[in-house]
């Protein structure tokens, strides 16, 4: 790709980008949120038409008028925003657009069979091809997206932040597949904000900044982290977790969770959070962490147990009650649960704090904008334009909008589900600092993240959840990532033993 | 005047005055009745007076189908009547031509079919037809205008029609135009409403803007006429004479009071279906019409469309329908 330019109304998303990818290599694409990575690969996939520049395929100039042309040439893409059809089955999604059919009549059993093979190859034989995609978790959907890309037998496979919703186990599986593909001569373009992943599988890398290539063809393994961060952000960022500076006051718990359960999701979860304390919940995808904190928030009804804030018991299954008591939730899925996509950035940020910016129900827009802008700057939302429609922001910046909403609302208890999903290294450090500041100001925080190091680094105390049970609770500096995994695997084995016994009986 | 019209309303007092042997109770007659949706006063009165008529005879069992403007549904109503093996069907079709086939089917099944108001397209589809005279209505209104104009060919004539896509509206308009032509007048402005008060008001508002000066205004339907009058009042216009249509009690009272632009109306009887019920009973019981020398009930009864003015309003007011 040479000199690619892509202009959106008001933004020059790509401003002359060069990228060369060879067969049989894993080429990593790095850059801050909004640097233009997703836009670049959408151009390559034929989803956007280019304003300037050329794409060369085996030396020949080629143009992809629509996604079909790109697919036919041999470019398969896993998009950042999951692009699946909720109402269709797993197999139908995998083969959408290139269904196995004879004379227009679908061959469902063939498709199911091939889908099963592809899913098995990705290490997920447990996903049934006939299951409706809408009922899968985010991780499950990501697997289906990957199976779709594999189903094309493509020469180039583009992966836009495929690991964001995966846990370490699954990332290992993904890398296994990537290695196989590389060995068979397929070129891979890999986008991620996790530098350690790039170290593990990347061959070469290209860094984008503000729609321009700032460095290309760097060796992935040798380039130092400091250099990369410098290239991406134009400054140095210390990526250490900000540690507690003051002693945790010995106050009464602000949030008390007492034995809450939900059938088939999680069982008998109890813990307490004191003001100023950060409690992390670690576990693998599907362990039920999101369900736990959504239940605390009242977005789901607990079948048993109670949640107490400042000594007052919250009404079960009522978000209003939780919000009134000063609880906030930054939800897991930014698009479906977090954002009003067609509304402006500042209005999304102020959504949970409207009372603060109104008198007698009449909004005071100036104050609202000012406050929204302030938090937007503090989490570094780019571009710095509060009136932009959220839909046109890059994925990472959308995530920051959701976070900003809860930073703006002064909560007593803040529940954060995957707060840094898809956020670049620079902004991530800033968010860590913000979280720490919140805690220091006396807010009680609960953090869920698939990044175990992040959970351990941020929190004062950590809960490890496996299969809906709390299997460990303790200070976070007394355990490390492998310790967490060990505890999870130990329960897995137990479970299997129990199940095995059951079968035998 | 009658307000609920259920059993002994004056809607039916104008009919059935002749007391002969025909009214004596006879063999039980099951009659199916179907008409378009009673979405305005005239049509409402049609059904009400038919029901009231049937109640007068203890030998009639009337099955009333849901009023509908959907020919497909009306066809299936007749089919249901055929399945039920009724003795007679009194049918006011939404569209006469479209109901012809199924009416024939009923006749073929040995059921006496009485066609009311909107004519079938085949003589074999009904034993007897009771018709209002839509064309004649237009002619009556046009002739009245001609009489009033007294040969002045420069008079401005406006027309507010009913639902424009119905054949009956076409007939009325044609009659009106034909009659006007005879005295050298023509319709200068024409709009169509939908037989409802609201549509009458809308159509008239626009019409009054389009025609700054009018001499005669014929409005096809007294139901929508309430709205037309309201619009005239809103526009503060009174330079013309308005003629109504159908002959509702309201309008007749207005004519009698003589304090609006409304000076006349052309009657379109709303008792047609009631006549149909009576005839159906006679036919099934094998009787004849007592006032005729004829042995058989006639094949067609065409009702006249007289003009009601202040002078003769008292004759018609008692039989007028409340809309």
């Amino acid at each position, binding site marked *: 790709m040479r000199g690619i330019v892509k202009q959106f109304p008001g933004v020059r998303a790509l401003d002359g980008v060069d990228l060369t990818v060879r067969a049989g290599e894993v080429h990593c694409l790095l850059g801050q949120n909004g640097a233009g990575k997703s836009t670049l690969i959408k151009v390559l996939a034929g989803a956007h038409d280019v304003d300037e520049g050329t794409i060369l395929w085996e030396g020949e100039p080629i143009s992809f008028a629509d996604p079909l042309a790109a697919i036919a040439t041999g470019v398969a893409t896993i998009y950042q925003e999951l692009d699946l059809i909720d109402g269709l089955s797993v197999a139908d999604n995998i083969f959408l657009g290139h269904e196995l059919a004879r004379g227009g009549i679908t061959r469902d059993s063939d498709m199911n069979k091939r889908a099963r093979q592809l899913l098995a190859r990705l290490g997920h034989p447990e996903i049934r091809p006939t299951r409706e995609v809408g009922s899968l978790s985010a991780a499950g959907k990501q697997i289906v997206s990957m199976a779709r890309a594999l189903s094309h037998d493509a020469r180039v496979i583009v992966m836009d932040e495929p690991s964001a919703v995966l846990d370490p186990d699954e990332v290992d599986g993904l890398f296994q597949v990537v290695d196989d593909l590389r060995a068979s001569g397929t070129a891979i373009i890999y986008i991620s904000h996790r530098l350690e992943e790039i170290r593990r599988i990347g061959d070469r890398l290209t860094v984008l900044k503000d729609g321009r290539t700032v460095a290309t063809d760097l060796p992935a393994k040798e380039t130092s982290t400091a250099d990369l961060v410098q290239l991406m952000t134009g400054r140095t960022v210390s990526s250490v977790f900000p540690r507690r500076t003051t002693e945790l006051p010995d106050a009464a718990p602000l949030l008390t969770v007492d034995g809450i359960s939900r059938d088939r999701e999680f069982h008998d979860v109890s813990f307490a959070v004191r003001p100023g304390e950060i409690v992390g919940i670690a576990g693998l995808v599907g362990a039920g962490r999101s369900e736990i904190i959504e239940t605390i928030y009242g977005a789901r009804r607990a079948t048993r147990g109670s949640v107490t804030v400042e000594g007052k018991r919250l009404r079960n299954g009522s978000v*209003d009650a939780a919000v009134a008591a000063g609880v906030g939730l930054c939800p897991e899925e930014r698009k479906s649960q977090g954002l*009003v996509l067609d509304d402006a950035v500042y209005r999304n940020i102020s959504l949970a704090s409207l009372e603060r910016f109104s008198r007698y129900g009449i909004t005071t827009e100036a104050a609202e904008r000012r406050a929204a802008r302030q938090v937007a700057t503090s989490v570094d939302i780019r571009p710095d334009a509060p009136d932009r429609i959220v839909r046109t922001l890059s994925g990472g910046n959308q995530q920051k909008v959701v976070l900003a909403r809860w930073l703006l609302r002064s909560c007593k208890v803040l529940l954060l589900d995957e707060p840094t999903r898809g956020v670049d290294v620079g902004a991530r450090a800033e968010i860590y600092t913000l979280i720490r500041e919140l805690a220091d100001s006396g807010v009680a925080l609960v953090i869920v993240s698939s990044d175990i190091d992040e959970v351990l680094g941020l929190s004062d105390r950590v809960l490890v959840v496996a299969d809906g049970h709390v299997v460990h609770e303790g200070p976070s500096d007394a355990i490390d990532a492998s310790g967490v995994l060990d505890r999870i695997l130990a329960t897995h084995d137990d479970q299997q033993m129990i199940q095995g016994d059951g079968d035998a009986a | 005047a009658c307000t609920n019209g259920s059993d002994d309303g004056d809607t039916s007092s104008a009919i059935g005055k002749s007391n002969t042997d025909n009214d004596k109770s006879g063999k039980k007659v099951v009659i199916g009745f179907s008409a378009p949706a009673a979405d305005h006063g005239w049509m409402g009165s049609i059904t009400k007076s038919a029901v009231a008529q049937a109640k007068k005879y203890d030998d009639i069992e009337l099955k009333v189908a849901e009023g509908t403007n959907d020919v497909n549904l009306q066809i299936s109503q007749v089919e249901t009547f055929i399945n039920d093996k009724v003795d007679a069907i009194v049918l006011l079709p939404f569209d006469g031509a479209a109901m012809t086939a199924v009416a024939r089917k009923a006749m073929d099944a040995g059921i006496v079919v009485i066609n009311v108001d909107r004519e079938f397209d085949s003589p074999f589809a009904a034993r007897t037809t009771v018709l209002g005279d839509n064309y004649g209505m237009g002619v009556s209104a046009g002739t009245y205008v001609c009489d009033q104009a007294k040969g002045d060919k420069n008079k401005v004539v406006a027309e507010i029609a009913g639902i*424009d896509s119905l054949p009956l509206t076409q007939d009325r308009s044609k009659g009106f135009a034909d009659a006007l032509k005879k005295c050298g007048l023509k319709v200068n402005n024409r709009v169509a409403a939908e037989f409802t008060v*609201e549509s009458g008001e809308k159509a008239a508002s626009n019409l009054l803007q389009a025609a700054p000066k009018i001499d005669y205004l014929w409005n096809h339907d007294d139901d929508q006429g309430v709205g037309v009058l309201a619009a005239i009042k809103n526009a503060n216009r009174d330079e013309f004479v308005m003629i109504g249509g159908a002959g509702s009690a309201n309008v007749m009272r207005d004519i009698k009071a003589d304090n609006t632009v409304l000076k006349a109306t052309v009657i379109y009887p709303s008792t047609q279906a009631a006549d149909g019920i009576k005839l159906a009973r006679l036919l099934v019981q094998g009787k004849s019409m007592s006032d005729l020398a004829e042995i058989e009930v006639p094949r067609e009864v065409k009702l006249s469309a007289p003009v009601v003015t202040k002078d003769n309003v008292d004759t018609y007011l008692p039989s007028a329908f409340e809309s």
Partner: protein
Amino acid sequence: MTSGDQFASKDNVITILRLASVVGVVSIGMTFVITGGGIDLSVGAILALSSVWATTTGTQSMADDYGWIVMVLSALLVGTACGLINGIVIAYGKVVPFIATLAMLASARGLAEIIADRKTQIIRNQGFTDFFGAEPLGIPVIVIMFALVVVGGWFLLNRTTFGRRTFAVGGNPEAARLAGIKVQRHTVYLYALAGLTCGIAAVMLMSRTTTGSSTHGTLLELDAIAAVVIGGTLLSGGRGTVVGTLFGVLIFTTLTNVFTLNNLSTSSQNVAKGVIIVVAVLLQQRIANRKT
């Protein structure tokens, strides 16, 4: 074409505005419902029921005793009550708006017919007719009411937390819920508001026609939805504009007026209307695209 003079005459402009008032007021309520992610097919039927309820012999004789405000209040109350029922069935019964309001359409019009016994109920109260028929400074009262509703609607949608929540509820109900908005209760408010506008429109139509009737407002729902959508409000919710709706209403009403001034037959009017609507929307999109 008719000379521009006649079309632009003050009288004609007033006529157009008067014609636009009834559908206009209902369209403002519809703008809220659609922006909030719903749809209301029952507006015409609710209008009919309100007008009938407010003009029964009972209500009218109460009005004789206590003043015509009784009629106005009953229209507004009935409208709001129907809207409330819609809202409750939709928000708490979780029936899709299309079906719930279609059911209300059938029921409300049926009830109106039963109450009115299919007769047109004429308003005898002189005070009512005089008040709403008046034209202070040459502007009819109902046009003034329409203007007030438009201004109020604009303010409510764009300058209040209620409006903000409406956008959020329509744009992404799940996100709104998780942001602490009482989505169900808000939905009920939206339909009640639409019901209220039907009540207001019923009063206006009662004054225009001096009647209450179960045939009032037939197919009003289509006109209102069309005006709202032409005005640029997204049928899928989350985006809505009161000013756009105002334009939508005026375009439709003006079109009919121009056609009548030109003595066009209803059929040709319909053909022309269809074509003009599509061309208008296409042009509007062109212009909108050029701007951004």
